[in-house]
């Protein structure tokens, strides 16, 4: 009992209320006149994997991008409502977007390594954010990031080869290493496995499991099975609405809403 509570205390960040690291309240997103997200509110717990699922065009990726203000760079995109990271309003004009994106990293559907060496791909972030005290320290960050991304053993002898020469799954893990290198708290993943084969997918999923001890992961996925396998919380989006949000087991075993049930079991309607 004592052991359990000790373990529990370790994961609780005293600064966070109820362990909630990201929260959205009454969020609307518009592309021009078209509303993509309708009044969505929910909270994402720390050190958990939260999956956003739903059919194409349901707004799940749009919503994911709200969390690190990636929508700012899209013309005509307007986000309203309250989005907070560790209690802080991220749409506050005083927020430095570049450092916000270092705290909340992102991995995309298509692996997009820079056309540089493996080492440089990972070293880039710490260098521009001034995180490395010395050359050795930088090398240390690169190696530990590659290790955390489960890639180091495969590339240890060719760190100075081009990152684009790696396989699809390795490139994606390189992008994860690159996101990790700037020591983020949250990693947003937008369909990170959709162009990978089942083995490469399993490696990334296993990596995500081990990463959740240190990071909070929010993943958008088309694969409901993937959401079921790896996430602890699942949110189902449909036509811009958050239909249902809850523990993954509940969503897949006994969803409360008929729209969720129809979608996850492959029904029309």
């Amino acid at each position, binding site marked *: 009992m004592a052991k359990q509570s000790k373990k529990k205390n370790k994961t609780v960040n005293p600064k966070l209320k109820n362990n909630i690291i990201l929260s959205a309240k009454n969020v609307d997103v518009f592309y021009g006149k078209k509303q993509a997200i309708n009044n969505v509110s929910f909270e994402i717990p720390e050190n958990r994997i939260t999956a956003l699922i739903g059919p194409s065009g349901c707004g799940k990726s749009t919503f994911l991008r709200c969390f690190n203000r990636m929508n700012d760079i899209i013309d005509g995109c307007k986000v309203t409502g309250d989005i907070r990271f560790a209690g802080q309003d991220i749409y506050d004009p005083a927020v430095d977007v570049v450092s916000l994106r270092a705290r909340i990293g992102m991995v995309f559907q298509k692996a997009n390594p820079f056309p540089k060496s493996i080492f440089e791909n990972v070293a880039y972030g710490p260098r521009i954010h001034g995180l490395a005290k010395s050359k050795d320290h930088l090398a240390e960050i690169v190696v530990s990031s590659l290790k955390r991304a489960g890639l180091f053993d495969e590339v240890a002898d060719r760190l100075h080869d081009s990152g684009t020469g790696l396989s699809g799954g390795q490139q994606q893990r390189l992008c994860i290493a690159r996101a990790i290198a700037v020591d983020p708290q949250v990693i947003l993943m937008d369909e990170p496995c959709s162009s990978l084969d089942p083995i490469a997918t399993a490696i990334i999923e296993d990596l995500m499991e081990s990463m959740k001890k240190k990071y909070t992961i929010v993943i958008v996925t088309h694969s*409901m*099975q993937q959401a*079921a396998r790896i996430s602890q919380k699942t949110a189902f989006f449909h036509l811009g609405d958050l239909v249902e949000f809850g523990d993954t087991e509940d969503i*897949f*075993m*006994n*969803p409360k809403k008929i729209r969720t*049930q*129809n979608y*996850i*079991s*492959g*029904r*029309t*309607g």
Partner: protein
Amino acid sequence: MNTDHILRSFDKALNKNENLILEMGGLVEQQLKEATRALKKEDAKLSKKVLLSHNNIREMEAKINASAIQVLALRQPVAMDLRNVIMSLRIAGHLERIGQYTKNMARRTHTITKADAFTGSISTLVRMSELVQDMIKSVLDAYNTLDTSIAEEVRGRDEDVDHMHNTLFRELLTYMMEDPKNISGAMHLLFIAKNIERMGDHTTEIAQEVIFMVTGEWPVEKRPKGDKTSRMIFGPEDLGADSDQSGS
């Protein structure tokens, strides 16, 4: 389900599974009906027929197991589809048990009929069996129509079966105390009563599984337990004025 899967072969696979359960249920119902008729008419030939047809039920169970496992492996069902498949495995198991008890009932009927042993309380046994047959019919309807109110009602009816079992226990014990020659036949009848009582319990389990299948939640309220035979003990004084034989 009122809505269909986008992939129509998925519906086909689930329907096949459901139809197998209904077919198996019908078979179990039919055999219990015949076993009961054999008891009522003291018909050794009919009881032998029931005895031999249990294999059909086992084959049905094997078919359901295979089809359910196939759906799990190939379709990865979730939510209600998942509950549907898992419950079909359990329901098939309960139906097989009911079939096994029916077989046992037929075997004992055959034995006492052949030996021309004591038979008493047959009409109570028949009524008890008819009650269970009605429950099986209703629970299969509930499964087929996903109607939890029917399933709830079946759960409630098991208490009546238990009460009849209590009565039979007492009646048959009285016969045994009245004349030791009755013991052999009465023991078999007592076991038949116990078999029917167990069938009622399995039917109640199926009713609970139907409720879980539809709602995703097990019924919380404990069903009424009416079987008191395990706590019953009788002496001569309990058996009234015409029990002088047992005192000697």
